[in-house]
C-alpha cells in the first residue's frame, strides 16, 4: 500500500513523496517501545494493587519492594509510554505539517536509543533504590542530565523543520513549539531546583509546579496538538472555529502554569499563593471548555465517525474524559473539597483518568489509526479484537475512576470523623478490590490489542474480508499548510 500524495512535493526541493518526508520505521519503533513500557507500567500497577489487597506475591524481596514498583508505574507511564508514543506521533505529524524532514534522521535514532536508555536506567535506578523525592521526577539524580540533553535534542530536531517552514502555521504547530520549550524547562526545573537550590516549603511549591507542568506543559500541549492534527484529517473537515483554537492555546499557555501550588493546599505555603493557584485552576476549566466545544462542533454532522472509525472513537471518548477530569478538578481544587479529598484515592482516580483515560486513549487511537500502515498491512487482522480492546479498556477505566472517587470520599469523611485509622483501611478494601479487577480488565484489553498487532504484522491483511469499505484516503491525505 504505497501511497504517494500528489501535492506534497510542490515548492520543496528534493521531496517528491511523503516517503521522503517521514521515516515510518521511527514511528513504528517508538510505538513499539511505548507499548512495551505501558505493559511494564501496568504490571507494576497491578503488583501495587495486590499489595493493597495484602496479596503481594513477592513479599520481603528488596528488588520487588512495592513502593519502588509504584514509582516504576508512574514513571513508566509518563516517560516510557506517553513520551515514546508522542515522539513517534511527532515523527509522523511534524514533517507532514512543515513539508520538511526533521533535522536529522540519525539524530532521531540517537534520540530513540538515548530515550530508551533513560527510561530503562530509570526503572533500574528506582528498583535498586536511587529514587529522588520529587513526584513524577523520581528519576535518579544521575540520569537527569541525560534526560535533559535528550529533551533538548528532541526540541532541536523538531523545531528546525517547524522554524524553517513558511506561511501561516497550523494550530498543531503552536502547541508543539510551546511544548518543546516548556518540556525542557519543566524537566530541568523540577529535577534540579528542589534538590540542589532550595529545600523546605519552597521546594514543595516548585515540586508542585513540576508535577502540574509535566501534565500541563508537556503531555497536554503535545496531546492536543496531535488531536488538532488527526481529528480534522480523519473527519476530512476543518476544525470548527479558528478563534476558539486561539483562545484554547493562549488560555492554556497563560493559566495552566499558574496552577502549581494547588497540589499543596492547606500546606504551610503562604495562603495568598494557594488562593491564586485555585483561581488559575478554575480559569483552566473555562479554557478547556472552549477547546472541547470546538472539537465537538467539529464532529457535528459527522457523528457517524464515532461508530465507523475506531480512532475517532478513542479520541472523542478521551475528550469526554478530559472534560470530566477538568470539571472534577475545578471542584476538587476548592478549599471545601480539599478538606475531604486531599491525600485520598479521589486524587488517584483523577490522575488515572487524566494520564490514561485521556492521553493514553488518544495514543491508543493514534496507534489504531497508524499501525496497519506502519506494519505494511492492508488492515487490522481482526477489527473485533480492537473492539474488545476499546470496550474493555473504556469501561474498566470508568469503573476505576468512579470506584476511586467514591473510595476517596469514604476515606476523607472517615478521617474527618476521626475514625480509627485501621478502620479506614477496612473500609477501603472493597474499593481496592474493584480497582484491582478494573485494572486487570484494562490489562486484558491491552493483550487483545497487542495480539492484534502481532497477527497484523505477520499476516499483513485482515483475517476476514471487511464488510465496511476500507477508507485508505484518510491515512495519507494531501497536506494542508
Amino acid at each position, binding site marked *: 500500500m504505497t501511497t504517494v500524495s500528489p501535492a506534497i512535493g510542490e515548492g520543496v526541493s528534493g521531496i517528491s513523496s511523503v516517503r521522503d518526508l517521514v521515516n515510518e520505521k521511527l514511528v513504528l519503533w517508538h510505538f513499539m517501545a511505548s507499548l512495551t513500557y505501558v505493559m511494564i507500567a501496568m504490571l507494576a500497577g497491578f503488583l501495587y494493587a495486590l499489595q493493597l489487597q495484602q496479596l503481594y506475591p513477592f513479599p520481603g524481596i528488596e528488588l520487588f519492594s512495592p513502593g519502588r514498583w509504584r514509582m516504576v508505574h508512574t514513571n513508566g507511564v509518563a516517560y516510557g509510554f506517553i513520551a515514546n508514543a508522542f515522539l513517534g506521533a511527532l515523527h509522523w505529524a511534524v514533517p507532514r505539517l512543515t513539508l520538511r524532514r526533521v533535522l536529522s534522521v540519525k539524530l532521531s535514532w540517537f534520540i530513540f536509543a538515548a530515550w530508551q536508555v533513560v527510561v530503562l536506567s530509570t526503572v533500574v535506578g528506582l528498583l535498586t533504590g536511587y529514587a529522588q523525592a520529587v513526584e513524577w521526577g523520581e528519576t535518579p539524580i544521575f540520569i537527569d542530565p541525560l534526560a535533559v540533553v535528550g529533551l533538548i535534542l528532541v526540541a532541536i530536531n523538531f523545531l528546525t523543520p517547524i*522554524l524553517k517552514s513558511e506561511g501561516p502555521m497550523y494550530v498543531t504547530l503552536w502547541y508543539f513549539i510551546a511544548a518543546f520549550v516548556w518540556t525542557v524547562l519543566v524537566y530541568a526545573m523540577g529535577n534540579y531546583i528542589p534538590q540542589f537550590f532550595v529545600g523546605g*516549603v519552597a521546594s514543595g511549591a516548585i515540586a508542585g509546579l513540576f508535577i502540574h507542568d509535566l501534565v500541563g506543559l508537556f503531555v497536554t500541549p503535545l496531546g492536543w496538538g496531535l488531536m488538532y492534527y488527526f481529528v480534522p484529517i480523519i473527519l476530512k473537515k476543518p476544525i470548527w472555529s479558528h478563534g476558539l483554537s486561539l483562545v484554547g492555546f493562549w488560555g492554556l499557555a*497563560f493559566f495552566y502554569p499558574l496552577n502549581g501550588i494547588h497540589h499543596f493546599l492547606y500546606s504551610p505555603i503562604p495562603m495568598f499563593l494557594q488562593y491564586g493557584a485555585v483561581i488559575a485552576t478554575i480559569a483552566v476549566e473555562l479554557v478547556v471548555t472552549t477547546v472541547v466545544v470546538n472539537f465537538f462542533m467539529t464532529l457535528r454532522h459527522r457523528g457517524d465517525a464515532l461508530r465507523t472509525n475506531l480512532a475517532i472513537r478513542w479520541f472523542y471518548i478521551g475528550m469526554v474524559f478530559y472534560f470530566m477530569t477538568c470539571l472534577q478538578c475545578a471542584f476538587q481544587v476548592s478549599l471545601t473539597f480539599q478538606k475531604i479529598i486531599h491525600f485520598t484515592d479521589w486524587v488517584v482516580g483523577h490522575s488515572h483518568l487524566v494520564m490514561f483515560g485521556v492521553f493514553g486513549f488518544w495514543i491508543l487511537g493514534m496507534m489504531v489509526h497508524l499501525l496497519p500502515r506502519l506494519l505494511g498491512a492492508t488492515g487490522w487482522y481482526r477489527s473485533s479484537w480492537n473492539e474488545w480492546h476499546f470496550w474493555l479498556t473504556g469501561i474498566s477505566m470508568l469503573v476505576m475512576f468512579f470506584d476511586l472517587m467514591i473510595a476517596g470520599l469514604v476515606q476523607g469523611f472517615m478521617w474527618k470523623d476521626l475514625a480509627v485509622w485501621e478502620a479506614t483501611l477496612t473500609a477501603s478494601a472493597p474499593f481496592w478490590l474493584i480497582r484491582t479487577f478494573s485494572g486487570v480488565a484494562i490489562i486484558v484489553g491491552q493483550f487483545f490489542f497487542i495480539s492484534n498487532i502481532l497477527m497484523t504484522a505477520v499476516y499483513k491483511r485482515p483475517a476476514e474480508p471487511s464488510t465496511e469499505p476500507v477508507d485508505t484516503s484518510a491515512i495519507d491525505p494531501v497536506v494542508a499548510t
Partner: protein
Amino acid sequence: MFESKSGIFLIAGLFFFALSFVVMGLLPWLMYIDEPEQTMEDLVADGVIHEFVDLAERFPDRFAKYFPDGVTRTSFAAALKRGHEIYVAEACWHCHTQQIRPVSGEDLRWGPVSHAREYQNVLQRPVLFGTRRVGPDLIREGARHGNDWHIAHFHTPVSVVPTSVMPRYSWFYDEDDYPNRDGMSIITYVQWLGSWLAEYPYYRGEGPAGVELGATDIITDAMVTP
C-alpha cells in the same frame, strides 16, 4: 503575534513559563529566604533522641558494629541521613504524608498543625509533604510507638496492625532478624520526626526502665514554638 513562531516561542514558551515560575516558585522561595535551612550539624546540635540511645542499649554489639562511634551526634546524624535516604528510596512518602493540615481534625489526630519552619532543614530537600495517605501521617510520629513496635512493624506490619497494607521490609534486618544498619537508621529517622516540638514527646510517659538519660541525650531546646 498570536500565531507567529516568535510570538509563541517567546511569549507562551518562555515568558509565560517564567511568569509562572516567579509566581508559583520564586515568590514562596523569597518569602522564606530569611529562614535559614538547618544543616545536619544544626539538627543534631541539641543532642540525640532517646530512641537512638535505646537502640544502642537493646543491641549493643550490633549497634557498635554499625555505628562505631557509639551514641554520638555524629552517629545520630549518620543514622538520620541514611534513614532519610531509605525513606526516599522506598518511596515511603507515596503512602505517608509529613504534613498536618489545619482542617478535618488532623491536629486532633496527630498533633500541632505543620509550620513552615519545620521544613527548613536538609532532610526536607526536596520537601516530603507527601501526596497520598494510605498509612497515617508521620511528621509527629517520633516516640508515638516504642522501638520494639517499629522493629516488629517494619519486619511484618500485620503482626502489630492486622489490617495493615504496608509492605514487609525484610532487608532492614540481618540474618537473625535483628535490625541492621538500615533498619536502625530508618527507625531513628521515623522516631526523630516531630522531636523538635516543644511538647515532644507529650504523648510518651516515662522512658524505658533501666536507661540512664544523660543531659545531652535528649533534644530539650524547642526549635519550633507552634
